[in-house]
């Protein structure tokens, strides 16, 4: 029999082979024969692709010229960027007024700060600014208060994607939350209405909804009431995204143990307070990957506005590719557009990872 332990063993650092760069490589890249093969094949493919792309995009490319006939190089011809950059960003927004769009874009960042950090001085004012931002941006973009009015059919380019995408993102989250709660409601009427809305919207392609908003909606509305086409798009995109959002959030709601709601009720919190203070903070945290996934999908779907005659960045690109001056430059054009979408979508994805980490830290 073993004697009782007098001294507990001290904890030691792990063996050197499992730490450091070499340890990492050994564990992750060369841990077995098949892993080693995979690593080598991957490196080989990357070695083929990356230099070739860099050569095409930068080293053998050309950046000056007036038409495609000036393009003399093997690689990419970026000569059109100089001429068309403004259009890609602003569509047909009058050139003299474009500073307003830039200002609205710059002001977006302080408006986003309250969502990114919580420990800045003047946080309260920023929060108010964040709430007021949609009104400020609307006035800057469309005019009013002494600013010249710009009709919304002049809106276009990447600015249009951002307007529709951000409005859809900001609106679809609260609408999605209400639909998700409605779908779980004990009141049959609210439950049926929520289910009906979600299933009807989800069962139809967004492109159809956009057509409906363009052709059918004016028939239902009173004849003297016209709804701006961008507002119609925002309504439809929001409706579409919020139906998906509702299902993502419902998944999160179902993951919250019923004991949480019981405890909240037992303490005297009513339904809305229990949801707001106890259930939703936990359910939304679980749903972050799905929510951001829906946001990213929504943002890319903004390119569909082309079907109702609005020219977003992709619409402008399509128009340029079929322009005789620049015929045949479709690769360059679409790569250029892809960079814009990638920048926004990748940022959203990083933001979601950061948010998950931060909320996770709070908990442990």
């Amino acid at each position: 029999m073993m004697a009782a332990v007098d001294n507990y063993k001290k904890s030691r650092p792990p063996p050197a082979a499992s730490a450091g760069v070499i340890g990492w490589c050994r564990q992750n890249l060369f841990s077995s024969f098949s892993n080693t093969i995979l690593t080598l094949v991957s490196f080989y493919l990357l070695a083929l692709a990356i230099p070739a792309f860099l050569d095409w995009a930068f080293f053998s490319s050309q950046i000056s010229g007036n038409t495609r006939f000036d393009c003399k190089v093997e690689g990419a011809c970026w000569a059109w960027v100089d001429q068309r950059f403004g259009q890609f960003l602003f569509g047909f927004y009058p050139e003299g007024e474009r500073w307003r769009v830039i200002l609205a874009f710059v002001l977006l960042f302080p408006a986003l700060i309250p969502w990114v950090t919580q420990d800045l001085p003047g946080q309260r004012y920023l929060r108010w600014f964040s709430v007021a931002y949609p009104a400020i941006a609307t006035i800057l973009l469309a005019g009013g208060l002494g600013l010249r009015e710009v009709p919304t059919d002049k809106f276009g380019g990447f600015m249009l994607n951002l307007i529709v995408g951000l409005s859809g993102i900001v609106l679809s989250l609260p609408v999605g939350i209400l639909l998700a709660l409605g779908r779980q409601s004990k009141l049959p009427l609210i439950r049926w209405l929520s289910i009906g809305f979600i299933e009807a919207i989800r069962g139809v392609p967004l492109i159809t909804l956009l057509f409906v908003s363009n052709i059918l909606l004016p028939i239902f509305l009173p004849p003297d009431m016209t709804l701006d086409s961008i507002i119609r798009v925002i309504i439809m995109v929001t409706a579409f995204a919020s139906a998906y959002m509702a299902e993502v959030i419902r998944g999160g709601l179902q993951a919250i143990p019923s004991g949480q709601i019981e405890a909240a009720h037992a303490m005297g919190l009513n339904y809305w307070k229990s949801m707001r203070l106890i259930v939703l903070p936990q359910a939304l945290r679980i749903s972050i990957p799905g929510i951001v996934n829906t946001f990213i999908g929504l943002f890319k779907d903004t390119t569909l506005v082309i079907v109702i005659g609005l020219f977003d960045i992709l619409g402008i690109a399509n128009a340029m590719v079929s322009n005789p001056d620049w015929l045949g430059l479709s690769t360059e054009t679409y790569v250029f557009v892809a960079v814009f979408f990638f920048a926004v979508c990748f940022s959203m994805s990083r933001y979601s990872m950061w948010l998950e980490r931060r909320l996770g830290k709070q908990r442990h």
Partner: protein
Amino acid sequence: MDNSKLNNSDNHLRVIEIEGLNKWFGSFHVLRDVSLSVEQGEKIVICGPSGSGKSTLIRCINFLEEHQEGQIVVDGIELTGDLKNIDAVRREVGMVFQSFNLFPHLSVLENCTLAPIWVRKTPQAEAEKLAMEYLDRVKIPEQAHKYPGQLSGGQQQRVAIARSLCMKPKIMLFDEPTSALDPEMIKEVLDVMVDLADSGMTMLVVTHEMGFASQVADQIIFMDEGQIVEQNTPSEFFDNPQSDRTKLFLSQILSH
């Protein structure tokens, strides 16, 4: 002896009055004609085999479960479907659950101040002071800024008790408060409950801790198949059980 104790209390107010309570889960008749009255300051321990309806009974008292027949009056307020009455009763009745049900996204202190701030409209500073008093009373003031996930089971259950007490309830319900705990932690929770009982709180406790029952209870209720089979003082209940079912139950839980 227990009767004399009750008579000596200032006025024996009936704080809970249950009359002819019936409840079904689907077609399963879970509570059958249960009647029970509880006086202020009384401690009642409810025991019985699983599925006997003891948890359901105390969950009816704060309307976590809706009853179909019978009458429940808590602190003079009858529980019907009326939301106002339900909220009023819940403000006066605290509950401690088997699985603690602390809010994992809030710190211990925030768990305790949430209901006072949002239900009682207590100013935050005052609510925090109150919370620290109760955390002190359950002997974990030093954990106030941790999150529930960082605490042991026993500590979590003590936080849950403090959280309920922060609403200054008149009645406390305990639904198997020690059943999910490691043996080493049961005592620390029972100590807090004994302390609470000594302070004169009205308590209904569903538990199998017979040591606690004999030490604290004024009445022990034994339930089986949705009915109150036997109700007696601890000494009578343990030494002179009346029904065969009670004898069998006692022989099984006391044999270890």
